[in-house]
């Protein structure tokens, strides 16, 4: 019993020292439903950053682009390139979806690492990247599923469901299972990476407040970018896969 109490106390002590708040949420009641307020607040900030910078930079496009416009043209080229590689020649209508996916996740992830959210005290929970909440990642993964079903159905009609028995009907269960594993893996990959990343930084900061966490923070920035790229690339790949003709 002593051991148990001891470990419990130690746990409590660590918990207090590090100030890590995992799974703590600020709840708002909206019409009998609960929402995680900190996620909504940070997502609004992210959306404001995106829309604000875009409107400022692209309001009056010049033939010879200036700094901001140049940057956003580069981003657009990047997104187009990504969609074209994954989807093929008919990538045009999907650029907004893939692009918004990439930009939203990227800015969310980086906001968690770069914006000083901790300066704003909440009564419960804390502000962090919106993507470290499972609700956000599932909310991004489910539209991806809808998108690739929509892409396949509009391209091939009901013949789209023929892919479930390709190349052989034996694979039918696995093919159906894939439709569930795709959003699951998408959302959990993003969620786990971002949460783990922020946790590692917070724990390291609590242990050694100076210098040591900096490389981990940079690693976190790198991982965040990669995760955004992976999410967008996979979404595009799923869409492209459901649009291509089966052989």
């Amino acid at each position: 019993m002593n051991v148990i109490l001891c470990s419990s106390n130690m746990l409590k002590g660590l918990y207090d020292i590090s100030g890590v708040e995992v799974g703590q949420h600020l709840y708002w009641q909206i019409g009998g439903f609960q929402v995680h307020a900190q996620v909504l607040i940070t997502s609004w900030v992210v959306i404001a950053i995106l829309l604000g910078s875009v409107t400022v930079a692209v309001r009056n496009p010049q033939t010879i682009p200036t700094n901001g416009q140049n940057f956003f043209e580069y981003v657009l080229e990047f997104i187009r390139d990504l969609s074209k590689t994954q989807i093929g020649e008919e990538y045009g209508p999907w650029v907004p979806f893939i692009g918004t996916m990439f930009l939203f996740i990227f800015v969310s992830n980086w906001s968690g690492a770069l914006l000083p959210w901790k300066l704003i005290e909440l009564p419960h929970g804390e502000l962090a990247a919106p993507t470290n909440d499972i609700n956000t990642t599932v909310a991004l993964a489910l539209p991806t599923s809808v998108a690739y079903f929509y892409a396949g159905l509009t391209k091939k009609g009901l013949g789209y469901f023929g892919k479930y028995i390709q190349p052989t009907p034996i694979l039918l269960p696995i093919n159906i299972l894939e439709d569930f594993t795709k959003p699951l893996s998408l959302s959990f990959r993003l969620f786990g990476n971002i949460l783990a990343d922020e946790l590692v930084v917070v724990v390291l900061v609590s242990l050694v407040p100076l210098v040591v966490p900096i490389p981990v923070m940079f690693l976190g920035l790198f991982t965040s970018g990669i995760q955004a790229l992976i999410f967008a690339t996979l979404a595009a790949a799923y869409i492209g896969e459901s649009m291509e003709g089966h052989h």
Partner: protein
Amino acid sequence: MANMVMASSKNLLPSLHPQPPTPKPHLPIPTQTQTQTPLSFPSLKSAALTAAIALSPVSAAMAAEMEKAALFDFNLTLPSIAAEFLLLMVALDKTYFTPLGKFMDERDASIREKLGDVKDTSSEVKQMEEQAAAIMRAARAEVSAALNQMKKETSVEVEAKLAEGRKKVEAELEEALAALERQKEETIAALDSQIAALSDEIVKKVLPV
């Protein structure tokens, strides 16, 4: 920590001590002399939980805090974020992807067109250069032909003059030679008559008649 990860911890931890859920209670850590609970639990985990709940106010407060900790806590946040995402997609499409993409495509097309024009003029320039080279060649040929002709003409003239001069010189020479010959014959004839007279005289003087 493990408890926090479990969303189901709500059911596992009934709040035996009704306390106001303070976010971070900083209570003194209890002494370890309070352990009186019998060890009659089947599993170590439930033992730990019960111990954590029953033993101290700190553990109870921590339990209350952990009770709210939920990583996999789905609620209205999910659809609202999805709606936000879709709205953001529409907004970005209206303000960014479509206008800037269109602008970039148009610029691309215009640059391509201009580039094509430049290629056309370059062929024109080449043609003009060829023309210029042809003109130069023709001019050079003309000049050299004129030069040759002039040379020929002048040489003919010079030769004619030369021949004339030579003829004149020859004629004068002949005349001079003829004059010389005549003079010679005259002198010879004069000499002959003198010789005859002289010999007559010599004969007269030598031969006394």
